């Protein structure tokens, strides 16, 4: 399924209501791993979310003379992220974990 940037708002609403599904795509910037490291230094921690709402955590490393976020932790898939959010919601905590 392909959903464009206009879906950002929809996803945002779903996030707020804590009912988004793993099928919901956010945006496709095609450069999130690079953008997240633009103002960082080599080996500095980085994190980005892809169009599937999966979370990638790692450190900035040099590729093609630019810094790119290289994941070194397991992908936090949207499904498990949602589960964590729902747990927090039930505990009256509005912060999304992961």
């Amino acid at each position, binding site marked *: 399924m392909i959903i464009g940037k206009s879906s950002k708002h929809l996803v945002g609403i779903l996030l707020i209501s804590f009912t988004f599904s793993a099928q919901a795509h956010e945006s496709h910037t095609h*450069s999130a791993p690079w953008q997240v490291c633009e103002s960082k230094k080599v*080996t500095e921690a980085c994190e980005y979310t892809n169009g599937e709402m999966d979370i*990638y955590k790692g450190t900035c490393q*040099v590729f093609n003379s630019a810094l790119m976020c290289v994941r070194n932790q397991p992908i936090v898939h949207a499904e498990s992220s949602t589960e964590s959010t729902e747990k927090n919601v039930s505990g009256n905590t509005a912060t999304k974990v992961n």
Partner: protein
Amino acid sequence: MNKVTTFAMPILSVLIIAACGGTVVETVDDTTTSITDDDVQAVDTSKFELGTSSSITEVSCTLSNGESSTCYSITINGFPSDRTELGPFCPTTTTTEAVDAGKWFDDGVLYDLTGEFISKLDIFYGDSNWQLYDENTKEVKITDTQTACEAAARPDVSAEYNNYCVQCDISYYSDTDGEGISSTYLIPVTPVQRSSAGSVDRSSIGVAFNGVVLDAAAPTEDILSAYTIAAFDDCVGHVNPTAGYHYHGANHGEGTCPGVDFEEDGHGGAFGYALDGYAIHTMLDENGDEESDLDTCRGHTDDERGYHYHSAGAGENLFIGCFTGETAR
């Protein structure tokens, strides 16, 4: 420079190497996993199953720290020994299904490059300038000649090939079936740990056991800014005029791409060596789990395998983050 490309195309090489090649390893201010002598395993050349016109010899070499050492000189023919043909890459029409098309990646995800995907790139990227197909015939615009391939498969894409699906045929660069562009790589016989990690930058990462080079990150910004898709096949590989067929990700066991066996203990299987001599294993183990103790280069140590890397996901446009060991100059 430890890569010797035997195909000569000087001007184009400068352009393409800027995107997919070159080898200058710079030191990164970083501390990687502490590796003891017991954690270091020598390169096992018996794991390579190279094709015709390939060879592995032992040679003297100088490592990136300036020390003399012994390396394997691995010459590959540039065609995967475990396959008989490459592709498919670009879909031919907007109705082409996944089985007849290749792949594209975006922000860590590997997508089927179907005709539908091509037809919705404007939505996908939120830019109405995307139009890789003929509105009337529904045929996808593909670089289907050597001239078109070489004008489009480079960072400064020729304007006339904006809005093209880019693919190059390996037959443009080899007259022999089952062979591509020959290249030679030096890998230390026994890995030597660096005091701090070395950047990949534009360097190739390593060599797969099937004789295909693992390349640095594809310059997706350049590719997409010209409204082109540099289509991959199921193995996340594609052809360019200088590197020939090369990988930008690891995707084993899907479609036309052969699988990699897990290790006996269920650990992710090895599919190649990095240029510092440490093995590169698949991302997942037999249970579908990732390792949780990887260092910044995506390596870790265990009793069975010593220090080794685990490749990133197929859609992440990389294999490892940096070099833990010295590479050859």
